[in-house]
């Protein structure tokens, strides 16, 4: 069986959620947030995960080595608001075993 990993997600109100995410369901971080309803439906993953809306922007708080940013994501983040050096789009982060212990914070809703 593929392993599940632990992720710590700080929601937009500052509350920390410790969740378990499967690594074998081709889920991305945005989908994990939605599956646990950590952000209300309609406020996250608006474009469905095409790196076209930035509603799943999050700040990476831990030191994990994450998959490199592709052009789509970089371009979207260059137009998004509240962007910081540690910003990523949750929809572009496929959950994998290397993400065990990942800590992220959701960017404000816009």
């Amino acid at each position, binding site marked *: 069986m593929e392993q599940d990993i632990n992720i710590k997600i700080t929601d937009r109100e500052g509350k920390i959620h410790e969740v378990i995410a499967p690594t074998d369901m081709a889920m991305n971080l945005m989908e994990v947030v939605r599956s646990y309803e950590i952000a209300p439906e309609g406020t996250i993953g*608006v474009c469905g995960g095409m790196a076209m809306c930035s509603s799943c922007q999050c700040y990476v708080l831990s030191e994990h080595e994450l998959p490199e940013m592709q052009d789509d994501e970089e*371009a979207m983040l260059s*137009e998004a608001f509240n962007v910081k050096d540690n910003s990523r789009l949750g929809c572009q982060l496929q959950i994998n075993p290397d993400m065990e212990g990942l800590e992220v914070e959701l960017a404000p809703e816009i």
Partner: protein
Amino acid sequence: MITTDILIIGAGPTGLFTVFEAGLLKLKCHLIDALPQPGGQCSEIYPKKPIYDIPAYPEILAGDLTEKLLEQCKQFEPGFTLGERAETIEKQEDGTFVVTTNKGTQHQAPVVAIAGGLGSFEPRKPQIHNIVDFEDKGVEYIIKNPDIYKDKRVVIAGGGDSALDWSIFLSDVASEVTLIHRRNEFRGHLDSVDKVQELKDEGRINLITPAEIIGLVGDEKLSAVVVKQAQHIEKEFEIECDHFIPLFGLSPKLGPIANWGLEIEKNAIKVNNALDYQTNIPGIFAIGDVNTYPGKLKLILCGFHEATLMCQAAYQIINPGKKYVLKYTTVSGIDGFDGTRKEAPKAVVKKIE
């Protein structure tokens, strides 16, 4: 006053398919959409992206799906109010509804079908503290009438297709065009990027990157923008201008529909999924991504199903007590409101000797 049988709010795939299903029941439809073109998200966000779960289409581009749906419902002559957002709804004494848009266009129908997807697309406003003070006083988020920029000094911000395309267009209209973007790279069609490069080299577009607008200056009307440029050394300076057009894309908001007295859960409208997708207000239905019920899936194909069942209920409201049985299009053909008829070719009866 525009009158119709079913007033559909939202011209995305679900709304467009409703026109077809309603047409089979001889019900006329009119659609309202905040976007200037039909297709909803399929046209606005991802027209060039493929969809793989439309039955019988192993792959279809979202833009092509919109075209096919328009073609399919064309016979039933839908009316459109585009570029306007449904704002208010009022129930009349005769049981019909009057829906008024933000531009004051009024529509009357006995049945309202909300097929609003994630809501109406609103421009994303940059976070500049005093930007609201200058809205319509030099700041526009959407270009409605390019003529107002004639011989004016215009500053555009953004890095996508609309920022590029409008910079190109306005370079022929305005006296001065400045394009500001946070990065040196733009994401847009290659042609547009090349054209902006050409206009920049000719000195017809003033390009400032990587930079952003951090403040607006003006007394009553916009007179300048404050730019922060981050190349090499960070510096701030003002650019005098008459107009500032931030083009940072659109984001959907449920908007005024949220105040129509409908039961809302998780940013969606609760409906009766056991029967007809009616909301808590009889005569108002919600179909497609905008609704919610136990087990709801936001899929285009589910919207098609919901639209079909909803039309049966609409028929009962509009034609109380009138008999009807489901017909198969293959058997009975389709009679359009435009006088056209589609039907299966007659079988050939011929003796074999």
